[in-house]
């Protein structure tokens, strides 16, 4: 079966179409979802290293906490930023 040309992701409940193979982090940033979490002191934080070292880009993808800079965007993924997840608590 040929590779799909585009992937449709759900980012914080919003359906977004992206080129396949880009990282989930890039998909979030391109969609304008830049702060990813709040720090212990309540300040917004974004990604820093882009390579898997800083752990700042963690988000919940299909129920698992992952580093989005190491996660390729795939069709059907459900992505939730930690600051959105935290709002439920």
């Amino acid at each position, binding site marked *: 079966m040929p590779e799909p040309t585009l992937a449709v992701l759900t980012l914080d409940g919003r359906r977004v179409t992206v080129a396949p193979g880009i990282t989930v*982090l890039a998909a979030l940033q391109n969609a304008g979802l830049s702060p990813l979490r709040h720090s212990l002191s309540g300040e917004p934080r974004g*990604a*820093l*290293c882009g*390579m898997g070292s*800083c752990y700042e880009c963690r988000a919940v993808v*299909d*129920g*698992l906490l992952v580093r989005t800079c190491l996660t390729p*965007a795939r069709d059907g993924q459900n992505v939730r930023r930690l600051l959105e997840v935290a709002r439920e608590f």
Partner: protein
Amino acid sequence: MNSEAWDAVVVGAGPAGLMAARTAAEGGLRALLLDAQPGSGGQIWRGAVAGQKGTAGDLLRDVASHPGITVMSGAEVMAAETRERAHTLTVTTAAGLRQIHAERVILTTGATERFLPFDGWILPGVFGAGGLQAMSKGGLDVRGKRVVVAGSGPLLLAVAAGLRQKGARVLAVAEQAGLPGVAAFGMAAARLPGKSREAWALAARLLGVPYWADCAVVRASGQNQLQSVTLRRGRREITLDCDYLAVGFGLVPETRVAALLGCALDGTGAVQVNVWQATSIQGVYAAGEVCSIGGVDGALLEGFVAGCAASGQIERLRDAPRRAEIQRRFQATLERSFALRPKRLPTPLPTTIVCRCEDVRHGELRGFAGWTAAKLQTRCGMGACQGRVCGPACETLYGWRFEGVRAPLVPLPLAQLLDEPITLSPP
């Protein structure tokens, strides 16, 4: 837990790792090449594909098609130990933990960026210089974005050129080193045929972009998102409105796996190797930026030497000492030229956060004798990144040496530690 045995395991699929795996396989070893990233190539060749023109494409193709090499992407070493002459790596993957045994291990774990804290560096929009480049290679759309590149080292130029090529508006490159240092590096690069070509290509791509030597980052400003960056040139402060700040102060060898295996480090904190790239532990070799920061050519050469040495192909190494000497001289110039100068480094305020994971501020950290005391009293370095960001920063700010590496090297899902399948919760 899955348990398997290989002739050689190569940790890290950047230029050094790819070259080491190919060379070891050519010598008849069954090699496993693993990397945390979803694809091979390391940070410098991220996004390159097998078969494309140039060294990256050729190496990726050879590694992908060699019957003696198995590539495992998305795999990170969480534990490592040496018993007598056998080495065991425990690796975390999406499918769970795998235990890998090998008589030979080649460490090509590369380097991470050194970040230094300054007022506003925690704002979204402030990225590592290499980080922004990696994100852009990973699909971040930088078209039309105003970017300031700051910090130190030739990586800044590569990052600026790469971002500009992707459509970003690079407002300035701010280098903390002085002009004499930068000029010395330029002349050293010009003497190496490959580097000279690279330098001219970079210069052409950066035409019109201001390059300010002797320039320091003072602060980043914005409300919840970066809006401007203030730099100091001489006695003058310049504020530039921008969307992204790409900032990094050189690279730090990533030695955690080496430390777990017991490999000795040198005075700079890199893995100590001999002329055959052998570490202090029998059967463990290291190559590339984990040994010294010197760029892709040095990494390829060292990967080749390590692959040959691990597989006993000594006759192929006749020319290696001469080439290594050229690389060593280049690395020494690089180190001298971009040595960090306290007067041109950002100065954190007492309220500036140093440890981003645990929100520990500069004012809380001054005065501790070392890591252990600071960790116990403040939790600095005890968050998710386990000191990967604040460790090198504290080393520069307070002179502490990061110590006490222990497994697990990465945070793991509890299900993996319990050796149970990870169940996805419904979306």
